[in-house]
């Protein structure tokens, strides 16, 4: 694998900006897309990547981002449906090797798993941690059988 990857991130909110700052610091070539110009203020002064203001549900914007050449694509827009749409375009039509979409609604996560789209649901991840905390407090009970 190359040392420096070309990483495209959709959505420059808390998650998107955090990922962009960190990955840029790690030496990767990072491009962030958001429809809101002000969102890019969340990027740190050390961020050395690029950004595009635009609506990612328009093909022209994804073309401008040269998404076809990306090694990694993260969809972290505020709307689940935007993430689901662009993740499918990236994975199925543009063959981006690694595609991950953040999805708030856990039910949608299951549907898109069927379509081969890898998703991360903050609710499910957080719930798991919380439940784990309870299980660790009372060993044995979380497992049921033991």
């Amino acid at each position, binding site marked *: 694998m190359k040392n420096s990857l070309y990483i495209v991130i959709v959505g420059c909110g808390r998650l998107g900006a955090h990922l962009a700052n960190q990955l840029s610091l790690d030496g990767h070539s990072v491009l962030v897309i958001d429809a809101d110009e002000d969102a890019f203020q969340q990027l740190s002064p050390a961020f050395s990547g690029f950004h595009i203001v635009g609506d990612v549900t*328009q093909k022209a914007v994804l073309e401008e981002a040269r998404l076809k050449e990306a090694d990694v694509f993260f969809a972290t827009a505020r709307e689940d*449906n935007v993430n689901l749409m662009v993740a499918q375009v990236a994975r*199925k039509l543009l063959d981006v090797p690694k595609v991950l979409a953040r999805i708030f*609604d856990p039910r949608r996560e299951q549907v898109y798993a069927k379509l081969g789209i890898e998703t991360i649901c903050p609710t499910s991840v957080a719930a798991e941690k919380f439940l784990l905390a309870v299980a660790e407090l009372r060993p044995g009970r979380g497992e049921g059988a033991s």
Partner: protein
Amino acid sequence: MKVIIIGGGKTLYFLCRRFTAKGYEVVIVNRKRDECVQLARQLAVTVVCGDGSDEAILLEAGAMSADAVLSITPYDQDNLVICQLASIQFGVPRAIALANDPENAEIFQKLGVSAFSTTDIVGSLIEERAFLEQIVNLLPVGEGRVNVTEIVLEADSPVAGKFLKDIVLPENALVAVIIRNNQPIVPRGPNQLLAGDRVVLITLPENHGPVMEVFTGDGK
């Protein structure tokens, strides 16, 4: 026939009127409560208030027994996800999405969702009419699979003065009627076309352009 339509505005309203007039069972899904109340008052349809890309809402709208889902919201991402949910989760036989961005129509098709673009449809209609000034009438019949077009032959038409038998037409096209001095003629090979004739043509959408070219010339 049971149809679920997701969206709002005038397009949705008039589509619903058309479908209910045909006796279809129509269910509307709309996010805005006040628009839902309005629609329920104006139309003989069931209205479900909520996000159409939420499975629970589609279930409530009766997606299990729907014959078709038509998603025409102003947001392409919602239209895509709604149609995918309808077909994957509920097995709806026909799910059709509006692509607001015409380029998304192709993307949706590649992702397995039937799509149409109003911009493309209206655009090509206007172009057809504006570019070919000679066209006086265009009538789609057979659910749009056949076009009946009436044109006036200009003096510079490549076929003016030619005999019908000498005119080479693309396959599946027909000169149905010639109207000359208000007299309709059902033409045969030996009939001649003259400038000023009104010619009624039968074409298919796929050969419409080439046929028009034969009668009106290249370019314009």
